[in-house]
């Protein structure tokens, strides 16, 4: 009976694996803003308390077994039966200690819950995120209608400022989760949920849909990019521009093919492509990934995705379009101009 040494061995194995894979992109044991910091502390606190409880009880079981085990052979029937002490003190002392620890945890939980309930100051940026199979549409809201625009899967926020997130579920339930910045909030059809995020460091923060939503739930990623305020404004202004006009013969052909084959679902503002059921591609090249965060945004992946989305992401709502090699080349070239 030596379960504690086994647990220790397991822990050692885990510890050895850690340096090899530092800083997991979706980890949440380190916070990057006022929404996540108090939760990270609470998580570590409860983790430490939980580990302590496991160690103590394991020690009690192992040491008790080793110290008190019946010695000498003869089988169980020879071992005498005695009542010994009532042992009720074990329960009352153990329960007393447990209740204090539980009460403190409960109070700490409530304090943190209150702290992250609302942003410390009013949010000046509101992003309406519509989660759908299997990507996130992001609409930046503004009282000035000319400053409203739509993008997908990669959202920029100003660093050091709280940002309000309005969540809409377009089809089934999804969940908005950017672990380094905030815990989860579900996007549920028929209701609008609100949450907020704030990053106190610039950088790219990974996110992921975290409610099972169908065959491509595994590939429904999100990136939050925290920019300095000026750069964020610049980015917003840039997103408002219509799509670049094609210059070369190939990209002109590409635009035509794009409008014809892709325009029913996708938009490129300023062209005849005005579909709204799939990601807005007006500034596709400003984004780092394709296909719900599944592929890096480069020319090879783009062409491959156009050629056969169903083999790359089985079940995706983008159908195989059976484009010719020439069409793929021209559309890819055109998409590359959408800076």
């Amino acid at each position: 009976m030596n379960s504690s040494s086994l647990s220790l061995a397991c822990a050692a194995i885990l510890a050895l694996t850690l340096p090899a894979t530092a800083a997991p992109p979706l980890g949440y044991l380190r916070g990057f803003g006022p929404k996540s910091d108090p939760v990270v502390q609470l998580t570590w606190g409860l983790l430490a308390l939980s580990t302590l409880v496991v160690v103590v009880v394991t020690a009690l079981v192992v040491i008790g077994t080793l110290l008190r085990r019946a010695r000498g052979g003869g089988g169980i029937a020879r071992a005498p039966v005695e009542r010994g002490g009532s042992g009720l003190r074990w329960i009352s002392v153990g329960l007393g200690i447990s209740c204090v620890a539980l009460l403190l945890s409960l109070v700490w939980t409530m304090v943190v819950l209150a702290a992250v309930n609302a942003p410390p100051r009013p949010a000046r940026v509101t992003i309406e995120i519509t989660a759908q199979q299997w990507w996130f549409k992001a609409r930046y809201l503004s009282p000035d209608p000319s400053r409203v625009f739509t993008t997908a899967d990669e959202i920029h926020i100003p660093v050091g400022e709280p940002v309000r997130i309005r969540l809409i579920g377009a089809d089934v339930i999804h969940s908005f989760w950017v672990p380094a910045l905030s815990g989860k909030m579900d996007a549920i059809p028929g209701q609008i949920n609100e949450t907020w995020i704030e990053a106190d460091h610039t950088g790219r923060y990974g996110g992921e849909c975290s409610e099972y939503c169908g065959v491509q739930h595994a590939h429904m990623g999100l990136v939050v990019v925290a920019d300095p305020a000026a750069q964020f404004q610049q980015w917003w202004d840039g997103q408002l521009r219509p799509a670049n006009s094609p210059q070369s013969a190939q990209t002109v052909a590409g635009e035509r093919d794009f409008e014809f084959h892709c325009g029913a679902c996708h938009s490129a503002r300023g062209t005849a492509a005005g579909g709204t059921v799939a990601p807005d591609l007006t500034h596709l090249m400003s984004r780092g990934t394709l296909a719900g965060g599944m592929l890096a945004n480069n020319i090879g992946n783009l062409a491959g995705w156009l050629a056969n989305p169903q083999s790359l992401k089985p079940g995706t709502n983008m159908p195989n379009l059976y484009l010719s090699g020439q069409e793929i080349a021209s559309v890819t070239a055109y998409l590359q101009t959408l800076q």
Partner: protein
Amino acid sequence: MEDIEFERIPRYVSATAAYRRGLGVIWETPPGIGGWLSSVDHKKIGICYIVTAFAFLILGGIEALVMRLQLIGPDRHLLTPEQYDQLFSTHGMTMIFLYAMPVLSGFSNYLWPLMLGSRDMAFPRLNALSYWIYVAAGLFMYAGFAIGVGPNDGWFNYVPYASRPYNPGMNIDFYALGMIYLGISTTVGAANFLVTVMRTRAPGMSVNRMPIMVWGTLTASAANILVVPAVSLAFFLLWMDRQFGTHFFDVSAGGQPLLWQHLFWMFGHPWVYAVVLPAMGMVSDALPIFCRRPLVGYTPVALSTVATMILGFGVWVHHMFATGLPNLALSFFSGASIIITVPSAVAVFAWTATIWLGRPVITTAFLFFSSMIVLFVIGGVSGFMTASVPVDWQLTQTYFVVAHLHYVLIGINLFPVVGAIYVWFPKMTSRLLDERLGQWNFWTMFIGFKLAFLPMHLTGLRGMPRRIYTFPDHMGWNILNLVSTVGAFVLAAGVLLLLVNVIQSLRSGRLAGANPWDGATLEWSVPSPPPSYNFAVIPTVVSRHPLWEDRLQESADRSTAIEGMLLDHGRETLATTLLDGDADAILKMPGESYAPLLLTVGLSGFFVGLLLHQWWLAAFGGAVATASIVGWLWPERALAQIAQPRHV
């Protein structure tokens, strides 16, 4: 004159060989396939339950291994996304509904009458019905999977993904109708347990002398009666939405996706306690045998069993912390979910104190039970962490929760169950399981389990969402997943060793005798395997430990299973009063009957008809079922109990 049979005063005798022979003739199930199909013997039904549940455990385990192969490293393509989704959904359905609860029902079915000093469950035919429906519903639920349309929305089957527009195949229909069907089995089984414990304990077995496992199953049964209707309703509404265009969950017509979640978790969370409380009871009853002393704190442990269940009705929203409910509401459920740790802590301290204040004899069963304490605490503290709302917003839907729920279900259900097999297998079969192989079995399972699931906590803390069919490289999850896959195969090897041990010991195990572990409760007073009538005379109980009274010397009174009431005018057992267990009336018990099986066949036709929209089949099945019920309830003179019992 049959009518006054009910009020006759039975003779108080010592059982003789002649009486036993006579009782054997009265109670024995006829041999052959007919006997097997019509048997109402709780021991046969109990063993059938356990064997069937283990068959489902093996199926669910194979599904898990296939999934672990897919997740052995990043970007694997062993399975298509749809195959993976059906596998994890079917795995959850199998383990939670077709293994975890039925295996405990099996043990309780087998052990209750023996522990309680009775000859059968209160409603033997209902007992057979609950088993047959369990088998039929299990096959029904698996039929979809077998033809490639198994459930694919996880075991909790959230709408709208489970609704027809997003899930047009028959996948969810198999699951929905199967769950409604299985609910009948659970409900009649629970009703049977409740009446059994209220009515058929041996004289003298007051409620404060019942084994803790009886408390556990009693509590679980009461909970099931209350919560199964919620889930049956939810699945019925879903099926109506899918097949007849009703709008209960249809957002475009004002339906509510969260209605599903509330109905499901009002059932789902109490169900989780229902699949662990009887297993905790097994530990509370059997661990003391190996510690050579009575359980520390019988009363607190019994009361905390009930308290867990009562609190368990009020924590379902902790599955819904991220759904946008108001934080004030969440904080109450957070509080309740933290408080529910308290009664569990009572059990943990009672078990550790039992080890410290006893003289543990280290057998395989002891290893399973004592390691369960540690696994229980790990599953408990990870549950406690998810009870804290802000922390749960991060933990929920990650592998941390996968680790947590497997610590709960494997740690608090499978480990005690395997321990219980080592303890009670000799009672069921007359042969002991091999202890040397048992040690191998334990350590393989324990190490495999730890390797598979301890790293999963970290996988979750490093952000891996559950229910993804593959994961990319460079997320910091590769090695952890590899270790989990290796661990899963080691765990499977451990379960395989158990099967080897069972098969080998059935043929050549050491003979056990009536009481191989020197246990304290009534089941150890009868031969192994017990005769068809269990007890030749109805035992009389004066303490919690009838077979240890001489050694504990706690009073001058002695329980006896040698002298007692002789009930041999046909199949009879004794009814006793609710709290004190005083003799109250003679119960006439039914004999073999095909009605439960026939009713199951009819109901199966009914449900298959509904599934396929073959209304004639549904009507025919319904008619067969109705006819079976009429036949079942047709008055029989031998079972007549017209006279009222005298109450003082």
